[in-house]
């Protein structure tokens, strides 16, 4: 079923706050084959953890299967680096939606903010949903 056009402009509830811990950052870095040293820089792609949490909540709210989603584009703009000790929340909005060849191309923007409500980074993602031709 194609995704409903009325989604455009909608903002979804903020994700539960997540504390950036050394353990989480070390596991993330290690999975990329890198080493995280205490006090070192957090990998620049780490905010995807927050952005992805927001994407999954959005997909679940709209009954969209995750396995039908392919990540088409991701761009981060950082106000400042993420640091261990940050408590971050992502708020996702749907900014665009178009259908191409039976696929929904969903444009999203997630604002990732810290415990003081200050913007840490903005993640813009394009999600390609391949369920557009299903009749169910």
């Amino acid at each position: 079923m194609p995704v409903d056009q009325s989604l455009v402009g909608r903002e979804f509830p903020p994700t539960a706050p997540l504390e950036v811990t050394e353990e989480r950052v070390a596991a993330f870095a290690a999975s990329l084959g890198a080493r995280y040293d205490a006090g070192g820089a957090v990998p620049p792609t780490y905010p995807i953890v927050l952005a992805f949490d927001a994407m999954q909540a959005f997909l679940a709210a709209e009954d969209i299967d995750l396995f039908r989603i392919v990540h088409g584009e991701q761009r981060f703009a950082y106000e400042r680096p993420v640091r261990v000790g940050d408590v971050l929340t992502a708020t996702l909005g749907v900014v665009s939606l178009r259908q191409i060849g039976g696929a929904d191309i969903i444009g999203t923007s997630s604002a990732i903010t810290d415990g003081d409500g200050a913007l840490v980074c903005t993640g813009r993602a394009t999600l390609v949903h391949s369920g557009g031709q299903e009749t169910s």
Partner: protein
Amino acid sequence: MNPGDTFEPRTFAITRADLVAYAEAAGDPNPIHQDEEVARSVGLPGVIAHGMYTLGLVGRAVEEWTGGAEVVELGCKFTQPVVVPADGAAEVVVAGSVKGVADGLATLSLEVTCDGTKVLGMPKAVVRA
């Protein structure tokens, strides 16, 4: 960093075990990154790496090249899948150079390939110079 500076390309190997570890660490359980059958059922050629895994490798290369410069922008389109075999590894090569420096920011030009095919579209990184 000066415009035209070229960095030493970095080669990274990606295994299925890496994808399992990444899925856990990043909170991304999408089975197309773990399960061959599910991946094929949605028209993919096999298990593919998370796009963000590949972009994460770009982040690693940028950090190494720039000595940990602060990243102010990072992004790309995921244009071709990086297929990760059940045995062995996919190899991703990240090449880069300094495209321009202005207002204290260096924009890097990047090319990311797997088996000679570009896998990222319009990859871009901007760091504090």
